[in-house]
Every structure is written in structure tokens, then in C-alpha cells.
């Protein structure tokens, strides 16, 4: 019932807005299209009886590779109390979704479908923040896959970013898709923790990213 206008630069608004980006990246990203939060303009939060807390917002979103920026409206519902589960998101960002990366995606797909050896890569970015240009689409794919996890795990008490892709192993498939086993590290800004996850994903230009399995891993021994 309580309905309040939030300060857009304060953390409750920022955390809710980040969730919108996880949603956009998981649904609409590609190895050549990744979205980031630009600005939060307005946020209104309201308790919804028996559901949770709903944030309605005006934000701007930037596509990272092409630098296109679009202003969108979005809604995030965080479940509370009896309700469990991931936040529910709706957005109105249409222009960004129209960014066409199909030809690049096709070229990448063909290259890796016809190669004799399966891709194996580690540490994207490396300790110096470096990613080899031909590995950037796979880092990006990792970011998209991570968005599924970050969306699922987000609450009003978290703020997730993907810290690093630690390992990619391409797996053979019988069908049209490319298949990858990803090890990624998430960083939660609020707890400051580094959380490793394992993701089994498929990707193809027509279907985009599909997450077959996702599993949280125990923390790395060397980080304890």
C-alpha cells in the first residue's frame, strides 16, 4: 500500500534498475549486443499486498558496443513474505532491441560450427582487464548467460555484476546449436562476495542463449 518516490541515485533505486539490465541482457542480448545501465531518472516504489514490492522506473540503457542509448520505462516486482522466487520484470525498451547483429552472429556461428577443434578459453578478462578481440564475443556470451543467474538471484539486498569468465569449454553437439560449459564469477557489490557459478548453455543465431543447467559452486579455496 505504501507508495513512495525514491531518490534515483540512492541505492534502492539503483539496485532495482540493475535488475532490469539483467532481464534485458538475458532476453535480448547477443555475443555482439550487451546492455548497461546509463541513468536512473525516476523511481516509484509500492508495496503490493500478497505479492511484494513493485518498483516503477524511468531509466536510460546503453548498448555497450554501439553506444546507442535509449530511454525506457520498466517495472520490477521483488517477491516478499510468503512469495518466493525471482523478481518479475517488464520493460518498454524497443529501439535497442532492434539493433541488428545477425550477420556478425552468423559469421561467429559458422566459424565455430565448422572448426575441427572445440573452443577452450580461460580468464576473460585477465588480471589486467584484457580480452583478446576474437574472444570478446565469448566473454559477452558469458555475460548474457550470467544475466540469467543474476536475474534469478537478485533481491533488494543485492547488486550483481559478472566479475570474470574463468573458463569456457565448448562441447560437441548433435544439433544446430553451439554448446558451452561456462565457469563464471559473480560479484555482489552489497556483500562484496565473489560467487562462482557453473552454467551449461547453448547458443545459435535464431535461438539466442539458452541455459540448460546452472549451479552455484563453493568458493575458491584461494579466496578463503
Amino acid at each position, binding site marked *: 500500500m505504501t507508495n513512495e518516490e525514491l531518490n534515483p541515485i540512492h*541505492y534502492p533505486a539503483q539496485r532495482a534498475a540493475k535488475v532490469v539490465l539483467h532481464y534485458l541482457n538475458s532476453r535480448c542480448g547477443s555475443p555482439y549486443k550487451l546492455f548497461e545501465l546509463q541513468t536512473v531518472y525516476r523511481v516509484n516504489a509500492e508495496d503490493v499486498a500478497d505479492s511484494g514490492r513493485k518498483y516503477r522506473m524511468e531509466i536510460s540503457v546503453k548498448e555497450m558496443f554501439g553506444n546507442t542509448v535509449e530511454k525506457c520505462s520498466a517495472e520490477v516486482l521483488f517477491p516478499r513474505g510468503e512469495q518466493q522466487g525471482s523478481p518479475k520484470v517488464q520493460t518498454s525498451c524497443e529501439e535497442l532491441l532492434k539493433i541488428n547483429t545477425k550477420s556478425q552472429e552468423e559469421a561467429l556461428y559458422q566459424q565455430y560450427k565448422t572448426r575441427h577443434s572445440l573452443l577452450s578459453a580461460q580468464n576473460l578478462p*585477465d588480471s589486467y*582487464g584484457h580480452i583478446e578481440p576474437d574472444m570478446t564475443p565469448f566473454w559477452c556470451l558469458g555475460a548474457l548467460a550470467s544475466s540469467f543467474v543474476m536475474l534469478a538471484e537478485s533481491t533488494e539486498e543485492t547488486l550483481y*555484476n559478472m566479475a570474470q569468465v574463468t573458463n569456457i569449454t565448448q562441447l560437441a553437439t548433435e544439433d544446430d546449436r553451439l554448446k558451452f560449459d561456462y565457469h563464471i564469477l559473480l*560479484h555482489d557489490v552489497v556483500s*562484496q562476495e*565473489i560467487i562462482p557459478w557453473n552454467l551449461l548453455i547453448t547458443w545459435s543465431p535464431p535461438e539466442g542463449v539458452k541455459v540448460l543447467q546452472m549451479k552455484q559452486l563453493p568458493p575458491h579455496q584461494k579466496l*578463503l
Partner: protein
Amino acid sequence: MLNFVGLSLVVLISAVGVATIERVEYDYYKYHPMPEITNWMDQIQRDYPDVVSIINYGQTYEKRNINLLKIGLNTGAKKKAIWMDCGIHAREWIAPAFCQYFVRQILQAYKTDPKMEEMMKNLDFYVTPVLNIDGYIYTWKDNSTRLWRKNRSPGPGNCTCYGTDLNRNFDANWGTVGISFNCCSIIYCGSKPTSELEAQAVTDFVGSRKDDFLCFLTIHSYGQLLLVPYGHPNFTASNYNELMEVGLAAAEAIKKVHGMNYTVGTSPDVLYPNSGSSRDWARMQGIPLTYTFELRDKGQYGFELPEEQIQPACEEAYSGALHIITYAHDKTFNGAVATAAATLWTVVLAVGVTSTTLM
């Protein structure tokens, strides 16, 4: 005679030539491991012996020397001071990179920029390029250690985990919010306030000179934020308005450089509540202008900021830091000048009036 002079000149040029060839320029736009940073500090002191001295003010758990660069013109008098530390959190590599850049900038600027020369006369800059040396070295060990945050002291009792979060260990509302008493937690605040040698070093050095310090800047990443005290939601700094005004102006200065937005506010407002931070401790000592800088980026690469971004990140942060430092300086020194000028005018006018009356 001329031939003799000519020969000496040739010999002199050759000597200079050889010296120039042997010296390798330090690359401020790459990340450097600890031994290179230590060598760089020694080199800076050798290059600018009149204005730079190295002070050892503590030891880490693994018994490494914690050193700072004291930079300022030697006037023989007791001087006001600026504090800057980098690398309290090991994985935030852009922070030590910024401290090194900052030192280079002020040393280059004071020779040509009258304002910087004035500040060098009136102030001493105390810059610690890496505070959490053990942690920083650990992040260079291999790929799996890169994201270490805490120091490297062992956990208490039966705890098999390592490290205390140094920025939760200071004696400022210690152990209240935004911390964990679980020694395996990444925000473990230690067994008691200032239990850690690295925090103790800062506390001892700054604490014994607290009235000298105008400004305490502690450099972190990431998030693009300028944080003002306090981290505890129930406490407001007495000069909150001033801190915000100066911080917002610093953020404007930052934005002018490369267009990046830095958000200004207290931790509980713009990030999360926390306690035991060095910034809060410094403010509680009475140091008026205390800020935490969270440098680039906003999560795209996070702690592993690409080396291509070191230069722009440092340039914008320098602009912000310089604004705060200049404000602190002018408030203390130009204020006195303005008062003296006003006094002078008052005397002149009084004399004028008296003269007129007399005439």
C-alpha cells in the same frame, strides 16, 4: 683553449646521452607488481630529493614495510597536510595506479603551475601508493587469487580462513553495521578495532598529527562514487553540507574530463551502510574533508579494469581530488590572505578619512 672547451662539451653531451639512454620511463598506464612500485618510490625520491622523502610508518602482517611519499617544499615550519592512501583493498588495482599517477602529476605541475607551487609551499602531501601490501602481492600470485580483498593475517582461533577487511577494522563505530564477525567473510571486521597492523599504522601516523591534516582521501574501486562520512546511517557529519557541496563540485570537475558520472553521497544513501572505515575514523579525528573515491567502472569489467582505461580513469580522478585539495588549501590559506587584504584596505581608508578630516 677553444679546443679544450669543445672537447669537454663533447664529453659532457656524451655523458648526458648515456645517462638518458639508460633510464627507462616508468609506464603509469600499466599495472605494476609491488617490487616495481617500491623501486618507483625510490626513484621518485632520488629524482626530487628537495621535495620528496620516503617515510616508513608501519609493517604489514607479513613484515613488509609500509611506506609513504611525503611531498612538499621544505619551509622548516610545521605544515598543514593532505593524506591519500590507495590499495586498502587488494583487488582494486586502479587505486595504486592512481596514487602513482597523482604523485607524478603534482611533481610535474609544481614547476610550471603557480597554484601547485603555492600548495607545495603551504602543504605536505602524504601519499601511500599501496597500504595493503600483503594483499596486493597475493592478488599477483596467480589467476585464482586476483580477486582477494582483505589483508593476509591469519584468522583467529580455529578459523582456517585468512584476512580481515581493513576498511571495516578502523575504530569508527566498529563492528556495528555492514560487517561480519565470521572470519571467513570478505567483510570480516577483525577481532577488535584496529586489530590489524596496516590499520594501526595509519591510525598511529595520522592520529599523532591529526590537527595538521586538512584532507583525508582514501582511494578504492569500483562504482564511480565519491563517498562522504559516515557509513553508519544514524550519524551525520557536522559539516555534511560542506562535504556534499565540495564533493558535488569535484564530481562536476571529474565529468568535464571524460564525461563520466560520479555519484556523491554517504555510503548508507548511495551504496550500503558500513562501519569501521578509514574515512569515518579520519573524520572522527576532526579532519574536516574526508572522502572515499570509488574509481571506474560501474561493473562492466569491475576490479579488472582494462589497462587502456588507466589513463582516463586517473585523469578524471586527479581533477576531482585536486578540486577537494584546492578547496581545503584555499579555505585555510587564501582566507588569511583575504583577511590581511581587508585589513590593509581598512587602514588605507581610515588614513584617507583622517587625512580628509585633517585637511
